């Protein structure tokens, strides 16, 4: 006669065997003195362990957890708003920066803003400024874009 092994005996006491296997073990225990005695000891031990009951009534953490989770949610939303604002401003900042760079670059090319900061003498005369003549250029309306407005406050002054 094959005895019930230890682990299966524990499962039998715990009521975790399948219905068919449970019936087989029960029949064996009824017929086997050794297994019957082992079953009694295991059942006593199982019941004794059940005496250690843990009462969680005074340890409700539900409200604390929900509050912490809501706080974390609020923090995440605020972080998202701040991030979205940064992202929204970025194109505008890039456009302004690009405009400045282009203006400085074009102006530098035109000689309007020299490295040393000199502003060239501006002349508004219809006959054209004297420096055109010095450059060997004859005044015409096509060169009007080269003519700078008179600004007596910084004429010839270093910036």
């Amino acid at each position, binding site marked *: 006669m094959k005895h019930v092994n*230890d*682990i299966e005996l*524990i499962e039998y006491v*715990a009521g*975790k065997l399948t219905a068919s296997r449970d019936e087989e073990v029960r029949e064996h225990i009824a017929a086997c003195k050794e297994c019957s005695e082992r079953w009694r*000891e*295991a059942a*006593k*031990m*199982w*019941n*004794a*362990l*059940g*005496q*250690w*009951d*843990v009462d*969680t009534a005074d*340890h*409700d*953490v*539900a409200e*604390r*957890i*929900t509050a*912490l*989770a*809501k706080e*974390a*949610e609020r923090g995440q939303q605020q972080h998202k708003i701040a991030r979205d604002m940064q992202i929204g401003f970025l194109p505008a900042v890039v456009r302004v920066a690009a405009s400045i760079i282009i203006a400085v670059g074009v102006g530098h090319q035109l000689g309007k803003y020299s490295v040393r900061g000199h502003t060239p003498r501006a002349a508004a005369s219809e006959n054209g400024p004297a420096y055109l003549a010095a450059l060997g250029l004859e005044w015409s309306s096509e060169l009007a874009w080269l003519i700078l407005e008179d600004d007596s406050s910084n004429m010839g002054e270093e910036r």
Partner: protein
Amino acid sequence: MTSDKPNDTELMTRLAAGDMSALGDLVRRHQDKVLSLSYRVLRDWHRAEDVAQETFLRVYRAAKHYKPKAKFTTWLYRIVINLCFDEQRKQAKTAVSLEEAGQAVLAESDCNAAERKEVAELVKTAVNELPERQRLAVILHRYDGLSHAEIGEVTGWTKSAVESLLVRAYANLREKLDKMKYFVE
């Protein structure tokens, strides 16, 4: 009469969508098990509450990525056990021996409340005196009702390792409790 209660997966789906009441439902449904498991492993209510709190916060954080590959409770218990392992590394164990706890001799089948409490303390001490892995296996098997396979999923142990631990643990407990001469017939 059919139940309108949503199951755990449905609650996790709602939580992932931002429904905080679903978190409350999950906590109320499972906190007793989480607390009792944490307490039995850590033997300290303060730490057990901290573990329970952190467990459910991790559930909340994982909601958006949660995919139900196993039972929700198996996943939940795995979080609890891992947090308990972390706590155990921090805390110094102060186990009380059976000799210090005293021995109760009980023959009668009906006990009063004080006697039951004393017996519970002795059983608690007997379980706490087990080697760590045996103790955890017994707690998950006897008190949380997990199957051998589920214990393996939660702890990472093989099924044969779980069975071996349980056999040795229950044999040790039988011996300890027999010495106490306590058995309710």
